[in-house]
């Protein structure tokens, strides 16, 4: 490991040094390929973000892949109904490592305006490990770009070794999550407690 201060000093002298970790993360962060996958109106904003005006290509994230086998990032763009939730989890399971999830919009975060309804999942984080959540209904393309930049920052700070190393490098962290089954009234189970716990109130 090279110290940050020493690295800066060397850079001023015209000597550029890097570590394998930085190089690896730099490569990963600048080629995040999202999955072509929209559930509701947020998907329209996602499409707008990838078009010329907002140009997601500037961040290396413009290659929307139509197959989960080729994608790194799942943008859960829109309302996840309970009927759709098992399919979303299954598609996530089919993505190769490393994989990241952005929950886009109020519905994907918490169920949004449909939270008290009978057929909408109260947030996709009940079944999937969400890396970045974007509030908004729907969030503007700038917000999605901000989320991708936040994710890039997260990827740039990943560790390759040690106990807190990146998820995909740790054999003990699962790569697949439980696919809920359709029950008589609700999904069974209604939440994956390995991923999500009910919020505890802190006073």
């Amino acid at each position: 490991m090279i110290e940050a201060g020493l690295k800066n000093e060397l850079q001023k002298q015209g000597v550029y040094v890097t570590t394998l970790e930085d190089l690896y993360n730099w490569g990963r962060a600048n080629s995040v390929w999202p999955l072509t996958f929209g559930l509701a109106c947020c998907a329209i904003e996602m499409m707008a973000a990838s078009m010329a005006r907002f140009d997601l290509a500037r961040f290396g994230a413009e290659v929307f892949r139509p197959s989960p086998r080729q994608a790194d990032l799942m943008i859960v763009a829109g309302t996840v109904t309970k009927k759709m939730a098992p399919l979303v989890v299954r598609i996530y399971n089919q993505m190769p490592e490393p994989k990241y999830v952005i929950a886009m919009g109020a519905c994907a975060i918490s169920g949004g305006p449909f939270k008290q309804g009978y057929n909408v999942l109260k947030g996709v984080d009940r079944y999937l490990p969400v890396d970045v959540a974007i509030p908004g209904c729907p969030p503007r393309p700038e917000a999605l770009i901000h989320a991708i930049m936040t994710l890039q920052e997260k990827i740039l700070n990943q560790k390759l070794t040690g106990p807190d190393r990146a998820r995909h490098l740790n054999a003990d962290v699962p790569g697949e999550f439980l696919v809920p089954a359709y029950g008589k009234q609700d999904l069974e189970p209604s939440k994956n407690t390995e991923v999500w716990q009910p919020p505890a109130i802190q006073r």
Partner: protein
Amino acid sequence: MLVEAILMTTTDHNYLVLPMLMVAAVGFALTPLAAAWAWAHFFSPAKPGKDKNAIYECGLEAKGDAWIHFRSEYYLYGIIFLVFDVETIFLLPFAVAFTGLSVGAFVAMIIFLLLLVEGLVWAWRKGILNWH
């Protein structure tokens, strides 16, 4: 030392630079792939699973068997399509060269067409053109 040796040999063998460039080009292409493979093999733990290894990738579970029977009519339909297809391929040059053809060639082409028409009539009478 090495560079000197290479320069020495290239002056002796004028075309040696070509295979050298080729080796360099192939190496340039394969080295990142090999590095990626090595990284995946030695550092990234494999995490296979039931869903990940599933064939179908639209989120739904595959139902039923892929080895299903097609009705024999389907193949006959395909053969009839081929008749029309091949006919068109032969008819186009026939039409282009029509004025310059000898009588023998014309008769031969007519016989060919009659054979195709006969096949079509046979298929029609068998009821293959009706979709069930």
